[in-house]
């Protein structure tokens, strides 16, 4: 039995301890907001927060999640009102949308660590998240907008 906190709720389940968190979320718990893109920590589509840190859930065995706090895109806000989500909307960031859960989770983590990132900070932090559709210019702008929204509202994160 493995237990952890998922978006503020306790979860307990009996699965192969080597199964990555991503497949546990998607297949066992039916939380498909976290996406599969590569399975080898190359694309960032599966990004979630574990104890406040962004991780690639496709390479995180569920055994290592035991006792941790996990936040997924579904736990970011009740209604899409997180500053990052709002900024994404404002800049019409998504094309196909498939990478965007991961992009948003990485961007949120970045802003939690650095409330006013420079272009270079954004490049460095976000380069693990691929967007095959090519929404990078808008992601960058949206992160800056979100930074302003967050500063104004002082929205922090608690994993």
């Amino acid at each position, binding site marked *: 039995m493995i237990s952890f906190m998922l978006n503020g709720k306790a979860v307990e389940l009996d699965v192969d301890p080597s199964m990555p968190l991503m497949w546990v979320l998607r297949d066992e718990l039916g939380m*498909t907001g976290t996406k599969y893109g590569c*399975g080898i920590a*190359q694309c960032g589509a599966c990004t979630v927060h574990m104890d406040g840190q962004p991780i690639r859930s496709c390479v995180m065995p569920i055994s290592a999640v035991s006792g941790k706090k996990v936040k*997924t895109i579904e736990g970011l806000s009740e209604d899409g009102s997180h500053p990052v989500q709002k900024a994404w909307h404002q800049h019409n960031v998504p094309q196909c*949308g*498939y990478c*965007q859960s991961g992009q948003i989770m990485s961007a949120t983590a970045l802003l939690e660590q650095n409330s006013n990132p420079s272009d270079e900070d954004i490049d460095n932090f976000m*380069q693990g998240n691929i967007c*095959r559709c*090519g929404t990078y210019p808008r992601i960058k702008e949206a992160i800056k907008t979100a930074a302003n929204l967050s500063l104004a509202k002082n929205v922090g994160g608690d994993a």
Partner: protein
Amino acid sequence: MKNLLENVSRRKFLKGSGLAAGGLVLASTIPAWSPAWAGQSKQTHDLNLFVSVNTDNTVNIVCHRSEMGQGIRTSIPQIVADEMCANWESVIVLQGLANEEYGSQNTDGSRSIRRFYTTMRQMGATARTMLESAAATFWRVPLSSVYAEDSFVHHKDSGKKLSFGYLAANAAELELPAVESLSFKSPDKFKLIGKEISSVDMHKFVTGSTEFGQDVRLEGMLYASIERSPVVGAKVKSFDAEAASKISGVVSTWQMPDQPTPVVFHPLNGVAVLATNTWAALQGRKALNIDWELGANSSHNSSTYLEELKRNIVTKGKSIRNAGDAYTALENASRSLNATYTMPYLVHAPMEPPAATAVVKDGECEIWACTQTPQSTQNNVAQALGIDKSKVKVNVTLLGGGFGRKSKPDFSVEAALLARQTGKPVKVVWSREDDIRQGYYHAVSAQHFIASLDERNNVTGWIQRTAFPSISWTFSGVTDEPQVGELSLGFGDLPFELDNLACETHKATGHIRIGWVRSVSNIHHAFAAGSFVDELAVETNTSPIQMWNKLIGEDRHVDPKAEGFEYGNYGDPMEVFPIDTKRLKNVLNLVVEKSGANKTTNEGEGWGICVHRSFVSYVAVATKVKVADGKVTVLEMHSAIDAGTVVNPDRVKSQQEGSMIFGLSLALMGEISVKDGAVEQSNYHDYPVLRMHQCPKIETYIVSSTAPPGGVGEPGTPPVAASLCNAIYHASGQRIRELPVNKHLRV
């Protein structure tokens, strides 16, 4: 079962109409509506195939094309709602099931708006006219005294109004008006067309509540992962079913039925592992230990193959278009310039690997798939199961990117076969490795150009040759040279003013599945032609912009047919969509002016330009790079597009941004290599695509135009590679003729 993307109900699509089946009929016809809805739902009243009105005053509009990031689930309803005078906030978008009555649903070839703009306006106008008629009858006033606005019909004199929802039942009983009787808005009255409207799926995108093909979940569903033949045509000799079955979570294994050749859209041979979750299925695959009989294609090696193409391409080939006598011009030339350009195989690598879910029950099949092509999915599944296609229902989910990969229905056929075999719902999950290794690849290619020059640096003759394995090989198994359809993509339609022109092809046969990738053969043709124009500018000491304008020549309509080439023009008539050199020069001059690409740069920096017409739209790109210490940095990209009438400028802009980045990915790093018949790459670490830190500043300029709408999803990509390599030359003096760039410089 989870709440999937809302699809049109089967009842609604079966209800049908007297419309003749098949592609383009709908483009000029309104389906005959059968007033058979009496006794059905009291909530929803159908006005035509695409539009129904609910009694709560909301309006349902069908999007029959697949959403893969281009914004079609927003722009199709935008057109209908505008012409219908519906309030945008009250529009509900329904995703169309596979249904020939809609016309073609094959969402590729940059043709959703190009082919359906008029039809969608007709659908909106029909619905509006019926609602207006219903109101006029209700008030007993002349039709001319009423008008629709914002989901109400108003009476001009009295100021009375009735909502669409109130009128819906009466309107639905009316005869469909004849197309000729419809009136259309003048463009200055548009409220939605031409406006930057956010995606109807935006909230789902940002909250992760989207339903992609990979996300489908059905009660009691098995997850399948298939170990497929590494070489096209390879067969399974044996495998270890027992070892795979021992993996916790694995339910069963099944050898996929051997498929006939040519490969077409058949699933590849292989062994499926079915499990209670994806992870277990993937682990089971590792234990299969398949022994393959590899077959003839295992002798294919892409590097030696390309060397052979390069050897042949410098020799005279088979003529496909000819003007004057380019060979005599060459003999008489004061000097000549020649160059060979090559590109490797490429693969789509959409962010979401293919996935399909199927249920087979009581002789019927239902599919949920991230497909660009629901109708061909329906046909191919029906064929594979040996049932009538009316027994196959295809639900289209959102697509996590497509780029052409998902217009091949092989993955849905796999799901259908496995669902029938197991008697359970089955989701086939393609891994990234499957996607990279078992794709339908953009062809490896070689191009050769020879220009003849006189003393005054005029181009007096032009010879161009191309060689690449054809997409048709995938379907015939025997085609061994480029076909007209592919040569119509930026080769046989060369828009230059030349007295002496020879366009030729060389043979090349297929060994791996060749398919269409975003902008298809335009990718290599525009790279080669666009690079060669720049080389000519350098050779003659002319500025690139001058050389381009000189070669394109006078304002005119180019007619490749007059020079013996059966040009396809993307399936559209030349009278409506000519090759217009004025528009071509216009986008080029616009991008140069806006970007400053004709200005001098700092040491180690340079600009490159290229212009190309494809999918009946015109795109010019200007790229600025810096080259230092063997590393290229892309600083800026500017593109100008003339796509005629634009429905949603923000989505056109985002497609241009995406096309620049797609083009940069392939030009900088894109390479699939094949060794002993098998693809060597497997994931994003060895098939890299552009990342945030490599992404330049991107600007887009949209030419304002009332011309009929052209393509948007693809035309941005072709000019990228040449503009990039031209920029690298002007920054560093290094001419790159063999892509990708990372073979020559760090990126």
